[in-house]
């Protein structure tokens, strides 16, 4: 790839980041939205106290919730996401988390159990062996991150819909709420959970999931943005109560359909 003629011969020194860390920390996408919204409100809503952070936050959350509802309404549970040839699979896959790779805490599969709770008939926990005994499906799909990057990955495991059927889940319930070993909860809607390309993934590129990618079991759906695909699952709750996930608590959208 050609290097830009306008790029300095010597890239900036990392010390710049340290010297300006307070300023860098003050920058955020939400800050940009907040500023944009406040400016619009100032013009359109004379008399509104745009400096009232709570009211701005409330309005932004209302818009976000409306976006979620529209996305859920548009979602077609039978429409399959594109799939790709094995030659395009990224090996190894790209790692991402809300912490650095050095802080990944591997899960011991021998002690691991997947707890099930909420609106289900059978709450007995699941082991790796029990999940592996369910019909396994393989899919080569695109992982799309909200940060703007993507890769093609091959995932295998039981369909979440099969799992829900086995535990006698109330499929009229609105949400599935997942907890993980890395304290990264997430929740998804029931139609997305029952989509045929939503897996409890146990392998990548036909190999057992490696520690950094969610061993022993992670959520893998083709219909949602990357950060909804929680790794290192520890429990699934079928519920009608909305519970925000790690990023939703920080202002990101909940539905995030692709």
């Amino acid at each position: 790839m050609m290097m830009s003629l306008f790029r300095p011969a010597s890239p900036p020194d990392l010390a710049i980041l340290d010297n300006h860390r307070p300023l860098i920390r003050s920058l955020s996408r939400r800050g940009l939205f907040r500023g944009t919204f406040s400016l619009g409100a100032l013009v359109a809503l004379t008399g509104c106290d745009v400096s009232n952070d709570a009211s701005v936050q409330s309005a932004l959350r209302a818009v976000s919730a409306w976006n979620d509802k529209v996305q859920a309404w548009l979602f077609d549970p039978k429409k399959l996401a594109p799939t790709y040839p094995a030659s395009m699979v990224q090996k190894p896959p790209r790692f991402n988390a809300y912490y650095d790779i050095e802080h990944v805490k591997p899960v011991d599969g021998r002690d691991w159990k997947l707890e099930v709770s909420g609106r289900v008939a059978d709450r007995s926990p699941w082991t790796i062996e029990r999940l592996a005994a369910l019909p396994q499906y393989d899919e080569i799909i695109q992982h799309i991150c909200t940060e703007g990057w993507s890769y093609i990955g091959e995932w295998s495991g039981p369909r979440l819909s099969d799992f829900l059927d086995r535990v006698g889940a109330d499929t009229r319930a609105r949400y599935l709420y997942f907890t993980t070993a890395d304290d990264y909860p997430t929740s998804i809607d029931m139609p997305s959970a029952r989509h045929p390309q939503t897996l409890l993934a146990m392998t990548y590129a036909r190999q057992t999931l490696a520690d950094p990618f969610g061993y022993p079991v992670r959520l893998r759906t083709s219909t949602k943005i990357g950060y909804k695909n929680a790794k290192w699952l520890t429990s699934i709750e079928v519920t009608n109560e909305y519970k925000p996930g790690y990023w939703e608590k920080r202002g990101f959208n909940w539905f995030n359909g692709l």
Partner: protein
Amino acid sequence: MVQRALILALLLLAGTAHGEDVSALQAARFPQPVRVGLLPGRDVLQPIEPQPILGHVAAIVRQDGKLLFVINRGGFLGFGATPVAVPVSDVALLGQYVALMGVTPKEFARLPRFNPSGAAPVPPDTTIEVGIVRPFH
């Protein structure tokens, strides 16, 4: 995990960045198998938010018993680049990219031209293990 964190903390406290301790640092990055033939041509990125491209992987070689990434530094349209070498412990995989973790851009700019004497290219169908890293943004 506690072991990994302890190793990393000790390395940071000791201020060590090279030598045998580097392998421990690499171990904390959960080395993953990758086929050598998939690596040449990949962009080599500086590990900061804009992820600027510092060069491109030219080859993977063994020299004096060490596994090295040979990186083409600089050049224009593939001409005039300078091949330099860094140990595998100084790089990490970021999807289809390679991040230069153990060498600052200044150090990278000063690395001498790679001397291929005694170096053996690693066959493309060989699988090696390289640490991974998350995006820098």
